[in-house]
Each structure stands twice: as C-alpha cells, then as structure tokens.
C-alpha cells in the first residue's frame, strides 16, 4: 500500500518538479540502484566488496567505447558491458573463493583489482587514457531512445525503471532459495556448508548478479554524464561513495539502499546549497560531513537507519534481521 503510493509519487514526480529537483531525484535513484546491486553481494551474501567501482568503470567504458568508436548504441553495448563485468566478477570470485580468501583479504583483493584497472585504463590510449573519453553530447530536446539520448526526464524514467526493477529483483531474490542460502552463508559459512549448501556456487552467483547489475549502472553513468576518466570512475572513493547509501540505510535490507541514497544525496545537496549561500565553498567540507555521518551511524545505529525506523513505525519488513 505504502509502496504503491511511493511508486505513484515517483512516476508523477517530473510533472511538478523543476529541472534541479529532477537531477537530484535522478541521482538518488542512481545511488539507490547501485547500492542495491552492491547489497546483493555484501548485504545478502556477506562478501565485502570495496572495489565495486571496477564494475561501474568497466561497464561504462565498454558501452562508451562501442558508442564512441563504432557508433553502437547502448542497448547492444549494455549486454557486452554486463558480459564483461560478470566475467571480471567471476574471475575475482573464482580466484578468491577457490583459494579460500575471505573477510579482510577478500575486501583488499577487490580494491587491488579496481586499482589495477584504474592504472591500466590510464595507460590505454584507445580509451582516451588519463585525458578521458567524451561521448557526443545529447540533443536535449528530442528523445532518441535507440542511442539513449534525450532530455533529463528520459534519464529520470530510465533510472526509475532500473531502480524499481532492482528492488523487485532483490525482493524476489531474498525470498528465493538463493536468498536463504546467502543469508545462511553470511551468518555462518561453515554451518551453512555442513548443511550441504554449496557455498562456492552460491557466492559465485551473488558476485555474478551484483556485477551484472553494477554494469548497468556504469552504462547509465557513461550516457548520462558523457565523460569518463579512469582517475574518477575507478577510484576507491567512488567505491566507498557507492556503499555509503546501503551501509547508512541498512545493510542487507531491501529499503536500506533507497533510504540511504535519499538521505545522503539530500543532505549533501542541501549542504552544498547552504555552503554556497553562505559563501563557504571550502573543498573537503562535504566529505568531512559524509565521514561524520558515517561515523555516527556506524557508532550509534550499527544496523543502519531503516531497521531502527521500521521498528519505530511498526513496519514488519521480512528483510530485517
């Protein structure tokens, strides 16, 4: 019921929102979607990835390069991007899980791969290297769905569809056999294995789904912002930015990534406005604020905002532990 009202509100949103509000809403949906993707791997299956920028970057560059060099539109490029990212995820997952790497070491392995890619892409001249790759800028007045070019409202609806789809997919996954196995593995892998769960297989599935979903986020990024720099897209700061939403909202919950993305984006935009109004445009201030919010949430609401909020509101959400 509440969900239907929220969906209706989001669909109707562009009718009364200005262009600034629309861009903020698109950003919120983007972070909600990407947070949801990361949540599958870390929140559901318990495999801490701190290198998700790898999938965003590879996805963005794959679709971007096909469009830039060959004029192949993103709807075809999307599948190549997904394929490449799943392949990358499968390689990392296979190596890590076969060699028994978990916890801290797994997280560091994901960072290492993302950093490796960042420096590697910096030296690939075919993709523009450190100078970046620029896609032809959109005609803002007409909608060219085939090449995913159009006015901001098109991107808003596209992101809304992706975020809605991801939410539905995650809700289904969480109640599926895979979801229960993941949660068992997350809570105690040894116990799960002793019950006959093939932990390797299910962890690989989580990595594959998560990397495929993140690839889509990368493709969207490429065609929404139209410029790609390895320094930015593969940076560890980007990986951390992507996971702040789900962590603050509630790791492993369905609504956590959405709530976290909304809270963080609104706070950060509000803060930017406020600072601009006061004339205090100090670099780093916003990030310090992010850090303080993260610190407070981790210290005082270790499960995130959503579980605490849901309890207060009396909402029984099966995804809460």
């Amino acid at each position, binding site marked *: 019921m509440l969900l239907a009202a929220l969906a209706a509100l989001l669909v109707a949103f562009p009718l009364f929102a200005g262009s600034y509000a629309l861009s903020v809403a698109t950003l919120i949906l983007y972070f909600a979607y990407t947070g949801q993707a990361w949540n599958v791997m870390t929140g559901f299956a318990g495999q801490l990835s701190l290198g998700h920028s790898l999938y965003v970057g590879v996805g963005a560059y794959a679709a971007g390069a096909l469009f830039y060099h060959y004029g192949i539109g993103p709807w075809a490029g999307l599948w190549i991007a997904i394929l490449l990212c799943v392949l990358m995820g499968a390689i990392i997952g296979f190596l890590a899980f076969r060699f028994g790497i978990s916890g801290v*070491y797994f997280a560091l392995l994901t960072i290492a791969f993302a950093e490796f890619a960042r420096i590697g892409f*910096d030296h690939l001249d075919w993709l523009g290297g450190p100078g970046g790759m620029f896609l032809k800028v959109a005609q803002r007045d007409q909608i060219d769905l085939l090449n995913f070019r159009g006015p901001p409202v098109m991107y808003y609806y596209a992101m809304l569809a992706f975020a809605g789809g991801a939410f539905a997919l995650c809700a289904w996954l969480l109640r599926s056999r895979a979801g229960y196995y993941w949660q068992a593995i997350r809570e105690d892998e040894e116990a799960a294995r002793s019950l006959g769960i093939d932990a390797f297989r299910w962890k690989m599935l989580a990595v594959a789904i998560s990397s495929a979903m993140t690839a889509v986020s990368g493709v969207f990024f490429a065609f929404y912002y139209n410029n790609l720099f390895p320094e930015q897209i593969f940076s560890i700061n980007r990986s951390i930015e992507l996971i702040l939403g789900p962590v603050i909202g509630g790791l492993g919950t369905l609504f956590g990534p959405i709530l976290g993305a909304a809270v963080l984006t609104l706070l950060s935009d509000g803060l930017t406005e406020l600072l601009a109004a006061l004339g205090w445009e*100090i670099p780093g201030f916003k990030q310090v604020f992010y850090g*303080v919010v993260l610190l407070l949430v981790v*210290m005082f609401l270790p499960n995130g905002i959503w579980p605490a909020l849901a309890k207060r509101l009396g909402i029984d959400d099966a995804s809460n532990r």
Partner: protein
Amino acid sequence: MTWDLVANVVVAGVLTGLVYGLMALGLSVIFGVVRVVNFAHGEMMTIAMYSAVLIFAALKLDPFLVLLPVAGAFFVFGYVLQTGVINPFITRPEHTQFMLLIAVAIIMTNALLMLFGPEARSVQVDYQLESFELGGVLLDKARLYAASAAVVAAVLLFAFFRFTLTGKSIRACADNYLGARIVGLNVKHLYGLTFGLGAACVAVAGCAMVLLVDVTPSLGPYYTLLAFVIVIVGGLGSMTGALLGGVLIGVSEALAGLFIAPSAKSMFSFGLLILVLLLRPQGLFGKRS
C-alpha cells in the same frame, strides 16, 4: 642505460622502502594484536607529514629534531582513538569495523584538504641535495638519514616486544585474547598501547618521508593501500616481513619507474598483491596460521 644508474635506483628504492616498511610495520602491529584493520593508516601518515611541514615552516626545525615529539603526540592520539572509539567495536562484525575506520579516514583526508588546500607542501633543508659516494653509487643524504631513522625505530619496537614485560603482555593478548583476560591482563589498555605504538611508527615514518616527497592530502589513501600491499606481501602480523616487504615494494616501484613509466609503478605493487594473495595468502615471510 648504465649499471650505475640501475644501481643508484635500486639503492634509492631500498632506502625509501625501509621508510615504507616502518609505516607498514605500524599497520602490521595493530592488525596482529588488535585484529582491526586500520583503514586510516595512510591518512595518519599524511597528518604526521603535515605536522613536520608545519613545524618546519613555523620554527625552522629539522623534521628529524621534531620526530620524537610528533611520535609522542601520535602515541597519545592512537591510544585515545583505540580506547575511545575502536575498543567497543572489537567484538562487532568485520564490515562494521571497516566502515568505522573508513569514516575516520574520510574525515582525516578531507580535514587536511579543508585546512591546507590541495597544493603540495614540502620541507627544504640544505642536505637534501647532498650525497655520499660509495663505490660509484650515490647515496642521498636525506634518504640515508630517513632510512636510518626507520631502522632504529623498527629495532626499538622489536626490542620492546621481545624484552619488556608490557611488550610480552601485548604479545600474549595477540596470541590468546581470552587467555590474556583470564590471567588478569587489562586487554583494553594494552590494545590502546598497541594502537599508540602503531601510530608512533607512522609518525616517525611520516617525519622521515617528508624529506623525500612533497605532501598533499590525497596521498593518504595511496599510503593506506601501499601499507596494505606491503603488509600482505610481507605477511600480516610478521614484523620482519613488513620491513622486507617495504624494501621489496620500494625497489619494485623504483625499477618500474625507471624501466616503464613512473605513473605505472603502483600497478606492479597491486599485481604483486594479487599474486601473493592467491598463491601465498600468509605472505612471503608469514607463517601459516
């Protein structure tokens, strides 16, 4: 390309690597005892470097002279951080600890950015351009002094853990948390001391490093990753491993910078990290647990 050049580069790599090693030693000690991964390690290093730069700018004091007071301040800071913020987290899930220290790291890096801006800062002393010659190989004075300070600090730390009662108690906590509590050790206090010592290592490394490179706020995450690479390559928890890992990374970075491109140098470190994680996860010098 002559052998002299290669030899010079290797020697410089070894000396820089010893300073890296001391920095990584701090991380290794903290992880080995407290079992918390200090994601703010490189950020602490940049704070130490800024301290040295600022003191130099204000009082014209050589970074080697302020090394001890800065290390002392860092020890206190580390103790307070551990006992005040991190201790309640030692029994919480790993990812929560990660997030806590990532938050600390974000605050540190960007606070430096807010206070000092993105420009590079450095220290100029007259012996930075001088060098000793040893059989055709040039040893930069600053680099040699920095490496010596790192080795002295590492030896002192090693002796502390080996010969003092407090050091032995800390090792007891690392070996068996429950056992240490049963025999009546104040584990939280000892954890605080450990984090303080790790922070002091970083302070010494930072004061020494400021003579070799310029400092910017964005160096923090880079040093954090570098420290992780070194510690994992050398073996988490192994003290000699951290120093030798530092030398290995220092030399490989220097050679990659010479033969390929300076910008590609850390790619080798990360490649090495991936290989070591997969083939010998306990590290080159670590013991299998």
